[in-house]
């Protein structure tokens, strides 16, 4: 039994550094799911962000506004929508995806996607139209010109990927709803924290919280140093 904050914290550190199997299992699920999700979402989202920034088409502002709005949708609403879609009585029920890791990945892709689109859109917006024209006139075809622009915007793009990753790895509502928090399968850091807290077992909650905190610090330091580099050039 834990008596106070200090003891709980010490216990949590012990859990972390004794490589408690259950704890690291949860961390593993978290990273695996979120890494796969972010790597699925990144490329298409960035291409859409690029198209929104560079291609002039009718109703472009509406698409931009739509993605901005989607970004503000609470994670539980995304979770609920997917739940209804994937449920046995829903349209995709036959796939038996509910309460599986693929379902969690789908949910996290859905959460990261609008954020990635919006952030990469503004990343590309900050790149001059002349960059595109210069690449083209120096002989780049459209595809290579896109790659050139991505290179020019790489710091901002990396920042958006990190932000997207930060959002999904710390997200609890959607994962809980469509993952189901099944031990050593769909239990990730945030759902485990929610569970441990509701059980009153704070040590594991704090240990997992620490992992998230360290991760948040790492992501933010990386971001800050990238931004710093961005200013140098």
């Amino acid at each position, binding site marked *: 039994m834990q008596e106070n904050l200090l003891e709980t914290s010490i216990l949590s550190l012990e859990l972390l550094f004794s490589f408690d199997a259950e704890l690291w299992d949860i961390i593993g699920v978290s990273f695996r799911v979120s890494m796969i999700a972010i790597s699925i979402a990144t490329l298409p989202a960035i291409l859409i962000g690029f198209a929104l920034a560079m291609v002039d088409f009718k109703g472009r502002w509406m698409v931009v506004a739509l993605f901005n709005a989607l970004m503000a949708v609470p994670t539980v609403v995304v979770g609920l929508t997917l739940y209804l879609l994937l449920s046995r009585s829903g349209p995709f029920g036959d796939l038996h995806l509910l309460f599986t890791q693929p379902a969690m990945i789908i949910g996290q892709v859905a959460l990261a996607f609008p954020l990635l689109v919006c952030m990469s859109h503004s990343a590309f917006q900050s790149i001059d139209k002349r960059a595109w024209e*210069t*690449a083209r*006139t120096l*002989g780049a075809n459209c595809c290579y010109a896109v790659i050139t622009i991505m290179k020019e915007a790489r710091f901002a793009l990396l920042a958006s990927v990190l932000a997207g990753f930060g959002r999904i790895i710390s997200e609890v509502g959607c994962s809980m709803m469509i993952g189901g928090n099944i031990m050593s399968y769909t239990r990730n850091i945030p759902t485990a924290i929610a569970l441990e807290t509701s059980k009153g077992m704070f040590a594991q909650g704090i240990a997992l919280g620490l992992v998230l905190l360290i991760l948040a610090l790492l992501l933010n330091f990386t971001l800050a140093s990238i931004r710093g580099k961005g200013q140098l*050039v």
Partner: protein
Amino acid sequence: MGVELRANNLIKRYGARELFNIEELKVQEGDSLHLSGDNGAGKTTLMKILAGLDKPCSGEVAVTPNMKSKWSTRLHPKVVYLHQTPYIFSGTVAANLAYGLKLKGLANKQIKEKVSHALAWARLEELADHSAHSLSGGEKQRLALARAWVLAPGLLFLDEPTANLDQQSVTSVADLIDKMLEGGAAVMVSSHQKNPVTELCYRQLLLSEGQVTEFGHQRKVRHHA
């Protein structure tokens, strides 16, 4: 084997405003043109359209020989446009010079050779491995010129190439254009005031009130520094 450009009935509008309406414009091998006109007359817009970077509202631009392969989205490889204020890619000075050469699929050795040649011409050898963004305005202009020149274009559009340059650089740009003309390339330079570069040009075009008028037609003048 020079390049010939023909434009017919070019019209460009922004909203209700018609910027220009040009019946015919022809640029031939060895031509050197000076395009003058007031601010906002549409010089930049016209040159971008001629270079294929912008679309006219109607009319067409044809470049012969047409070197476009069927599925490629590349612009004409012999036509290069240089911005009024050039865009410099992030990366080193040398990487900027190599950009177009790599796209041509040249061997590494050839690229290296051409890059060092271009560095020498632009007097940027010492800065070869520096970040190109740290160059001064004039150095950037020279870098951009060298980046276009190194591709050996058949038709080069220079939008205000000398605005930022010191005397020595203006002279070397003039030299460059001279050499290119000798090699059979055509050059179009936009500028509102006369300078050694525009003096090289034997065709004088004026863009004003939506029309291009050709008023001077000198004989080819060789400029000697």
